[in-house]
């Protein structure tokens, strides 16, 4: 059916271009739409191309599609922004389940007495393995993320358990292949083993690493789809699945990199701490930001407030800071500076620096004006300031700076702090802002960080 295959090819092209577009913020939305149309095209082709058997069972198909489609659509629309990753994990598991189902059905379709050492049957077993691991693993990940499963379940020696499980699965598979015909009960045992393997695979991995695991399971689902495609010799399934498998793997690696972890650590190490280092015993967590995220967040925000402090001066980053301001303005972002009266080490320290960098005076807001505008600010960029944004001056009567007016940056959507370490500032006191829920730290010399940020913004 060359026409079918050519149409499938178009659908594959659309998938590829869709994926490519999905990887750039400006085109991502269109890319998603493109991939969706590719899927629609593939489905339509598959529904209507002529087949040997004529009992198409369209009713069942339509029923399935309507059921699944509406559930999926409603779930997607209803889910809260924060719960999206777990939703993705759930969806992914269902995809895996479908591969698993197909493998089961096709195994049961094998005529008794067929030779088992056959490419088709190996393929079926593989589809079963990958699909069911992806299914049960995703469900566990989903449970962990939505909190219904405790994150701290610690299996003893998870590496060994996993190794044993893997061996068991493989052995079982080989045993099945060595039978004289399809052995259904052995197959069901294999199925259970696979499902359990998925559970033991994901359970030991910590909550902080879940996004990586989901991405990994996602590439499994892709591979499962491709293998299922092999069963039917269906090219769109094969290629589409492989595409997801490949890009999912790369994505997983990229995500690990972004978190400064290795994939090996995440999966094999399987320790139950999170990738995010927790500060003190008071459960204070410092979130480190990544350049890429910050860049996009800044670029796509409406209003940014820069809070310069002594660190800006030490880093002599005034010019670079101005450069960032210009870059952001070129993107249509409204950028202002909030100047605290005692920022720096001499009266007017910030003024000197910013005047040198030619920041126009009307961009400089004084304390009161700034505090008024902070609530409507999307992102605050604290550059080497510390004491002047320390909320304990407001909240903690025991603090040596209690009563000093500060820039109330926590009012803004996100606070990004550029400094080199967790060291305190001039007053020598800890700053609760750095542990704030909406605060992200970007460690490093301010000039350096700003440089990188500009670069990222211009590229993103």
């Amino acid at each position, binding site marked *: 059916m060359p026409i079918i295959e050519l149409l499938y090819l178009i659908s594959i092209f659309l998938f590829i271009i869709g994926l490519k577009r999905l990887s750039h913020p400006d085109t991502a939305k269109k890319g998603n739409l493109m991939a969706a149309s590719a899927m629609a095209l593939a489905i339509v082709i598959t529904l209507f191309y002529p087949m040997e058997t004529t009992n198409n069972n369209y009713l069942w198909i339509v029923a399935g599609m309507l059921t699944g489609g509406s559930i999926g659509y409603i779930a997607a629309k209803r889910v809260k922004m924060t719960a999206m990753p777990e939703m993705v994990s759930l969806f992914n598991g269902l995809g895996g389940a479908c591969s698993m189902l197909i493998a089961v059905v096709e195994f049961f379709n094998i005529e008794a007495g067929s030779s088992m050492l056959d490419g088709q049957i190996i393929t079926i077993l593989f589809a079963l393995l990958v699909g069911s691991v992806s299914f049960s693993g995703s469900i566990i990940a989903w449970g962990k993320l939505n909190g219904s499963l405790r994150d701290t379940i610690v299996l003893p020696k998870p590496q060994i358990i996993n190794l044993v499980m893997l061996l068991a699965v493989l052995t079982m598979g080989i045993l099945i292949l060595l039978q004289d015909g399809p052995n259904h009960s052995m197959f069901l045992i294999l199925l259970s083993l696979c499902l359990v393997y998925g559970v033991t695979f994901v359970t030991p991995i910590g909550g902080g690493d879940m996004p990586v695991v989901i991405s990994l399971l996602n590439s499994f689902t892709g591979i499962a789809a491709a293998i299922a495609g092999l069963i039917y010799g269906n090219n769109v399934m094969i290629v589409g699945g492989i595409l997801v498998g490949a890009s999912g793997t790369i994505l997983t690696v990229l995500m690990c990199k972004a978190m400064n972890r290795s994939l090996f650590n995440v999966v094999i190490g399987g320790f139950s701490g999170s990738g995010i280092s927790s500060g003190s015993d008071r459960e204070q967590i410092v979130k480190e930001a990544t350049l890429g995220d910050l860049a996009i967040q800044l670029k796509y925000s409406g209003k940014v407030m820069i809070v310069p402090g002594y660190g800006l001066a030490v880093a*002599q980053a005034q010019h670079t800071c101005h450069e960032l301001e210009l870059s952001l303005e070129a993107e249509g972002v409204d950028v202002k500076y909030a100047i605290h009266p005692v920022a720096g*080490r*001499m*009266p*007017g320290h910030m003024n*000197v620096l910013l005047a040198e960098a030619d920041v126009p005076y009307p961009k400089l807001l004084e304390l009161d004006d700034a505090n008024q505008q902070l609530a409507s600010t999307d992102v605050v960029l604290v550059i080497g300031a510390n*004491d002047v944004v320390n909320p304990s001056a407001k909240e903690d009567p025991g603090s040596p700076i209690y009563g*000093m007016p500060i820039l109330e940056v926590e009012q803004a959507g996100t606070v990004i702090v550029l400094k080199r370490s967790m060291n305190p500032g*001039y007053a020598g006191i800890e700053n609760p802002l750095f542990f704030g829920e909406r605060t992200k730290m970007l460690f490093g010399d301010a000039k350096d960080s700003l440089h990188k940020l500009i670069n990222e913004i211009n590229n993103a």
Partner: protein
Amino acid sequence: MKIGIVKEQADARVSVVPDLVRQLTAAGNEFLFEPGCGHLANFSDQLYFDAGATEKSRREVLSSCDILISIYPPALEDMASMKANALLISQFQPYFSLEKVNEVAEHKLSAISLDMIPRITIAQSMDVLSSMASIAGYKAVLMAAGYLPRYFPMLTTAAGSIPPARVLIIGAGVAGLQAIATARRLGAIVEASDTRAAAKEEVQSLGAKFIEVEGAKDDKSAGGYAVEQTEEFKQKQKALLAERAAAADVIITTAQVRGKAAPRIISREMVDQMKPGSVIIDLASSTGGNCEMSKDKETVIYNGVTIIGDSDLAATVPQHASQLFSKNVQNFLKVCLKEKELELDLNNEILKSAVVVYEGQVLYK
């Protein structure tokens, strides 16, 4: 409360500007002023009237007010005409000379010395030393540029090239830092020296070069102030600075050690090595000067080098200086003047240091 100000005797500034007057009268206090007290700082009597103050003769102000606010402590005869237990808010500099403080005590008055407010973050808004030193640093550079027979900035012109002036700043405290910033703005090459460990980074944070002398003593317990240095250090510093001074077009010295005479840093031999026409501004002259030849409140020309001793440059920018001083006072009053009642809580960290005489008793030690 009756709060008053009189004309400063030898200063263009005024301690309270109409803005603060308005706030004080609104809170129910009575405010008395001697006519003309703000003239030199461009605050007319009319502005004081408008803010709700009452014009009184100097005598009347002195004899009737509960609180007298001034830039410098009143003269002996002024104190004599004041009410018993009246409060003087001014700069007494007790660490430098106890004379004035004793006079206050003798007249059974109270005295708050604004220059004794601790240099901590929370008290920074009341810190008159900072706001005045900042002006002095700025003005010192302008003055130096005015006296220098040469350009400050580098200029590449058709009539030849002018190299940038070299400015050497001794003491990178508030005044020194502001001087660095101003000189850099005008295009000079700036170097600075200080003994405090934090100074290096601070100097560099303004784009200037720090002259490092090893072995400086730094005392964390001195509240941010410098301490006296060892003889060995002084020698090292001298040798290094002699070299830098010879290359300098302008030297601005601001080095102070609290409670001591200012350290002698620029010696006669150093000045001998300087180019004719060069300028030295000694902001530490009132405590003895950092330069051997500087005379307080005088301009000396030695060997072609102009040496200006003036610790009161803030007074040459009277309008803004008064405004900042008055704002410092305003912030300070928040600590001790609740509505219209005086509350001198001597356990308060700030008041503990600032109240130097309480009802005739010297608290400063």
